[in-house]
């Protein structure tokens, strides 16, 4: 009983290999016999697959005595079918170990199974230790193992045990499918002078050292568990090879000449071996076997997992069916003389299983890529069909609604019914229920209209000057009467007459800035506008259109006028004093471009030229200060610096907090005297920059830049990186563009309103006269009872009738009509002028836009 159990155990899980379509199992066994010299015996059994019976049948078996010693313990280390270099044929090899009683030395012998089914010793060697870890039986046959950091090998050619002369910290062993120089060892060698390590390869046959990174990149060496060289070629002495490596972090990597080509996530840990299965026209598979009996196959072409198995005792690749292509033999339960449970498959149609009634191969979605592609194609066809259908449906609904409306219109016409058009349909608009009352503005409008024109001189509040880089800025702050606005304001500088008889006018450039009223602190002002003329609101202007930056906000009647001139002519003339003259036109009517009013000249005072009076010292030092000095500096700076206005429009993507972004830039400070301006002083005074961002809507805004051109471009460049991609930046010529169009709109409005007013005035006057006449004529209502009363009533009725007839085609006084035409033509002239200005500005906007 004991005996049988023991022998059963012996026969379980033998060492198995495949060779020439057969599978051969090896096992060790105590040689039978009752005499003293009982020894150990190596038995083998060769099985071949019988298709009909779906089983493996014994083809051959045999035994060889390994040891005659009684106490010697014999074990099989490994078996593998490898090429014999001398015979130039593959032969099954088995490595056995004989342990002596004392365990001080270990004798290894490699046996090969000859074609006549005899076990022949091939290599024998003794070691003072037992091999641990991975042992390789490689082509040659070569036995290779690691011991204490060294790599050792032996083969019939090597004559004894040899050691690879390089010390590797990690190493990978593989074979090249080449005729010569097949077995190699790759490893990391620590270079003593450097902290990095380098990949070295070593050919076992000839001892040649080569750069290992042509096979595996050096980062992979330390994590590679096993390797399979799929193809190798030597072109002009350069090795080219395709390698598959399984790494410790569950990855199968395909390398082509040392470059990662593809990766595949493996489902199991600890890969042990990679084999290639050539399934013929279906392509090749990689079969990766893992510790604990897992097997995973991967298609070579797609590098996708083909199938998975678990609790596999061993896996062999060979042509077991004899059909010309490889199959895998997966052994699940093994005995030396029979396979109890196995599966032969190539995943391409061949599948033979035994002892697995329920276990159909657990294939994970096999060639998933193919299914996916088919599905994709079908899906996209379905989708496109659906979209076409939807489009057609949409078209049909649109057509139908058009038809329905047409039919409705037609029936309306036929039945002579008034077609019912809703308000929004008439306007072609989508209207929200906008209920804003406009009545409350009217009182205000009237008031503005009735203000009488009183002329008064503007008052000069302050005169100052600054010099900078060969230029002088002269500035004046004036207060004008709100009721008498000034237009066409400019400054001119006259040299002091001195001994000369006539003072000379010096060429200057003037600019006008609107300041907040003198009493109020400089909060929001209208100084973002630079137009040199003012436009009061026309009467019909709705209060809705009021906004803080309106150019026409005449509540602030403080005006700063600056003039810039070159210093040299002043210095040349030797004069240090000059007169500053203010030119302006005072008019109650903003639209009198062509009015005959003559410009008024006002002497503002004298300035004594002081070259030391340098610009923007105070401003740069303390922009947060509110002082006249600083304000003057600021105004001078505005006058001196070049000025650009950009309209930034982002139709689909809101702009966000541009002001915040500007403020976060290096050296950016707020100017307290005019808080909407930001001073950017990142790199010295020569690169000063004044910025004013005015957001119109969340999707558009205007950027005023006062700086040198280079600075402006640099700023725009960095702004573009911040702005959304779909946004466009268009330069406006000064602020005039917008002003002009506004002006034009106002002029047109004015024209319309005055036409209405004049016409109604003309008719009303006439009416009133008649009314007076009537009132004087008939003070009391006649008594309808008497005959005269009745007569009077009749006459009155007649008169009324006439009068109403007259109203339909009224007669007007020629003189009055002429006056009307005259004033109207004047107003129209203004409108034409505004239109002209607008046209001059607008093409510039269109042409010179550049997109971000």
């Amino acid at each position, binding site marked *: 009983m004991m005996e049988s159990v023991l022998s059963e155990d012996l026969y379980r899980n033998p060492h198995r290999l495949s060779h020439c379509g057969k599978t051969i199992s090896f096992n060790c066994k105590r040689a039978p016999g009752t005499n003293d010299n009982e020894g150990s015996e190596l038995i083998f059994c060769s099985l071949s697959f019988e298709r009909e019976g779906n089983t493996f049948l014994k083809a051959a078996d045999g035994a060889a005595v390994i040891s005659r010693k009684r106490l010697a313990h014999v074990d099989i280390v490994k078996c593998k079918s490898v090429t014999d270099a001398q015979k130039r044929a593959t032969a099954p090899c088995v490595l056995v170990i004989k342990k002596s009683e004392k365990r001080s030395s270990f004798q290894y012998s490699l046996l090969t199974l000859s074609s006549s089914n005899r076990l022949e010793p091939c290599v024998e060697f003794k070691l003072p230790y037992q091999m641990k870890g991975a042992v390789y039986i490689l082509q040659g046959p070569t036995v290779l193992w690691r011991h204490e950091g060294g790599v050792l090998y032996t083969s019939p050619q090597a004559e004894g045990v040899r050691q690879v002369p390089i010390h590797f910290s990690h190493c990978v062993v593989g074979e090249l499918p080449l005729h010569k120089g097949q077995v190699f060892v790759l490893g990391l060698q620590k270079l003593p002078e450097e902290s990095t390590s380098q990949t070295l390869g070593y050919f076992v046959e000839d001892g040649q050292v080569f*750069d290992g*990174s*042509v096979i595996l*990149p050096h*980062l*992979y060496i*330390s*994590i590679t568990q096993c390797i399979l060289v799929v193809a190798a070629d030597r072109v002009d002495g*350069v090795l*080219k090879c395709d390698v598959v490596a399984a*790494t410790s*972090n569950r*990855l199968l*990597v395909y390398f082509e*000449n*040392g*470059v*990662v080509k*593809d*990766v595949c996530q493996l489902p199991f840990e600890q890969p042990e071996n990679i084999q290639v299965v050539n399934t013929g026209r279906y392509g090749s598979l990689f079969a990766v076997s893992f510790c604990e009996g897992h097997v995973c196959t991967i298609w070579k072409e797609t590098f996708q997992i083909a199938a998975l198995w678990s609790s596999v005792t061993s896996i062999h690749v060979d042509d077991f069916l004899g059909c010309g292509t490889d199959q895998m033999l997966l052994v699940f339960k093994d005995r030396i003389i029979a396979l109890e449970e196995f599966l032969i498959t190539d995943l391409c149609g061949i599948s033979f299983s035994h002892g697995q009634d329920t276990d159909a191969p657990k294939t994970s979605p096999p060639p998933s890529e193919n299914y996916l592609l088919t599905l994709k194609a079908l*899906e*996209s066809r379905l*989708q496109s069909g659906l*979209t076409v259908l939807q489009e057609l*449906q*949409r078209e049909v*609904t*649109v057509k*139908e609604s058009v038809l*329905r409306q047409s039919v409705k219109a037609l029936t309306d016409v036929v039945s002579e019914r008034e077609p*019912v058009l*809703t308000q*929004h349909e008439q306007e072609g608009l*989508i*209207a*929200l*229920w*906008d209920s804003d009352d406009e009545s409350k503005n009217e009182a205000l409008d009237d008031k503005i209209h009735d203000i009488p024109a009183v002329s008064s001189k503007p008052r000069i509040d302050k005169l100052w000057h600054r010099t900078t880089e060969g230029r002088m800025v002269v500035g004046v702050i004036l207060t004008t009467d709100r009721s008498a606005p000034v237009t066409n304001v400019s400054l001119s500088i006259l040299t002091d007459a001195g001994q000369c008889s006539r003072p000379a006018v010096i060429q200057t450039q003037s600019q006008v800035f609107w300041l907040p009223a003198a009493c109020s602190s400089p909060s929001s002002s209208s100084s973002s506008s630079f137009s040199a003329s003012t436009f009061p609101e026309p009467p019909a202007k709705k209060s809705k259109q009021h906004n803080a930056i309106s150019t026409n906000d005449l509540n602030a009647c403080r005006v700063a006028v600056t003039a810039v001139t070159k210093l040299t002519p002043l210095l040349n003339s030797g004069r240090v004093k000059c007169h500053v003259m203010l030119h302006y036109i005072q008019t109650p009517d903003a639209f009198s471009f062509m009015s005959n009013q003559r410009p008024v000249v006002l002497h503002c005072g004298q300035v004594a030229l002081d070259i030391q009076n340098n610009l923007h010292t105070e401003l740069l030092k303390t922009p947060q200060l509110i002082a006249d000095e600083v304000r003057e500096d600021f105004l001078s700076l505005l006058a001196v610096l070049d000025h650009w206005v950009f309209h930034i429009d982002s*139709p*689909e*993507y*809101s*702009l*966000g*907090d541009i002001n915040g*972004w500007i403020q*976060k*830039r*290096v050296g950016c400070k707020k100017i307290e005297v005019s808080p909407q301006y930001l001073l950017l002083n*990142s790199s010295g005074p020569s690169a000063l920059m004044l910025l004013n961002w005015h957001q119109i809507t*969340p999707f558009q805004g205007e950027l005023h830049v006062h700086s040198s051109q280079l600075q402006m471009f*640099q700023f725009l460049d*960095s*702004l*573009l*990186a*911040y702005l*959304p*991609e*779909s946004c466009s930046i268009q330069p406006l010529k000064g602020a005039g563009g917008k002003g002009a169009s506004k002006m034009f709109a106002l002029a047109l409005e004015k024209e319309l309103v005055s036409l209405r007013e004049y016409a109604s005035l003309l008719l009303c006057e006439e009416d009133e006269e008649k009314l007076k006449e009537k009132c004087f004529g008939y003070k009391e209502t006649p008594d309808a009872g008497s005959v005269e009363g009745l007569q009077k009533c009749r006459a009155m009725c007649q008169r009324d009738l006439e009068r109403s007839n007259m109203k339909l085609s009224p007669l007007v006084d020629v003189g009055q009509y002429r006056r009307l035409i005259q004033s109207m033509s004047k107003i129209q002239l203004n409108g034409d002028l505004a239109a002209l200005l607008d046209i001059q500005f607008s093409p510039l906007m269109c042409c010179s836009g550049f997109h971000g």
Partner: protein
Amino acid sequence: MYQPPSLLEKWSQENNELVNKCKQQEAGGGAVSQDHRQSSLRWCSSEFHKLLRKIQGIPPHVDHSQLELAVVYNTCVCFTAQSQFSEAELLLKEATERVLQVTGNNADTSDPLVLWRAGLKSAGNTALHPHVLYLLCLQWALWLAKCQLENIGELQEQMSSLCEIVCDGVGDGSPSEAKGRLSKSPLLVMEPKRLTELLQICTSIAQGAEKLNEGRSSEALSDLQAASALPATRALVAYTHLLSGSCLAHMNRPQMALQCYKKALETDSRCVCALYRSMLIYRQLGNTQAEIQALRLLHSTLMLPPATEPVLGGIQPLSPSLLLSSQSLSRLLSVPSALSVLYSLALKCVLSGRVTEGVEHYLDLLAALHSEDQHAVDAEVSVLPRMPELYLEAGTALLFTRRPADCMAFCNEVISTTLELVPEKVVLEEPEEGIGGDARGLSVEGEDKVAMLLWAAAAYLVQGHCHAHLKDWKQAVTHYTRCINLLVKVHLKNRDFQPQIPAADVNVKHGKDLCTLQRMKGLSLAWRGISFTQMDQLREALRDLQLSLQAFPDYTGAGLWCGEVLWRLGRKHEAAACWEKTWSLTTQTSVERYLILW
């Protein structure tokens, strides 16, 4: 000797090529259909994932980390765009762990928040820091997409510093930026700045919706107002205005809410929801004219072919709709279908006296229901009343506009479809006051039968009205009689005799049925009585009118006519008493629509 290119170089190149391909596909995406975009996205994500597996196939290495994180970012963007959130989240987790490994830290935790804090801390001021932040952006996006707002709240501090670094760092001309632009940093599929901007506004919107849902309107309002200034697409800015409006509406400020809705529409004309919400406000305010106008606009807007999303300069792979998937938000953004809007419009027109208009809308609605393909209608029908009810309402509206012939045709239609299905006998249980919940005697079919009966009866009643309108009293009497005959088929039963199946909602419905039944009885009897009066059959008239008053005492018309008949019969005292009693009644009951007219 042949020297293979370094892994880093090769992989950077691969990444950049992939990104360029992705961007090309997206840039050309204007004309390309949605499914093409999807498939190209799928391709991109699988390619990126493959590249990532290659890169992560080796142990983490400082030199490779920047590239690795960039590829993780790209892969995750593609995954997220395809709603593969768990895959993306796993990648992020792995990436953070690898960052920790590279920097020599180890965090044995599965809590993502702890992991992120550790990751950010360990990346510190190294070159990796921005890349870790980009990944945090994606984590943020994932949390947002999965509506895990509390996680975002937890990392608020990190998020705000992230926004500062990612957004404000752009274009500030600082030397680090200039260096960054020149150096060969790996390309990214989506600019982190844009992603952050998108996340900021989407988070604000989602949080706003959540707060609004929890009733913290004022808190939500201030957040949303702030969010409306953030850089974003028109649609998203419109959403902030829309939600602000909803908050205001919630806070009982309808006019301000209307302003917000208006702003939303001004910002994005495709924001139909704003129109719908405005309509609801007008309805709440009782501004019927405005409500009708809004309904009309809403309907015509919904009938427009769906506007295609405008093509931005390079479509971003992550769409806002992906990030705004919370329940409370979609509830706020939902808009009823065109047909149900049309129905509301028709009903509102009729109820507010614009009957001619209402009739047109009813006819349009019925035409649409008949013409549209069955599939679309089936989806619609659930929100609309049943067909016979629509017919009855339309018919009544037609009668209002003095088109009795058309009205009769409609009623005939209803009768022909329902009459055959009317059972011989219907038992309707009388719900008893105070005891609710279990008054339920009829199966669903039975309930349907009651509805059938009521529809048929109503159709007869309306036909009777038509004849009465044409002064064809004899015909009127015939139709009223048919109506009464149908109505008496319903037997009222006390609930004690019924099997008890508790169903609270059905009880309400039954009560309604019963009310309708009684009312219809009262009306039909009263009108038969009136018709008899017109034909001088005063006795019959008096009987009917008195029965009517019994069935439905609230109907003043019956009382008045009863008095009239009594007067004519010479019973003047009774007549006076009857009138007096009638006048003392207050009539505030809202009658079923097709019965209200008389």
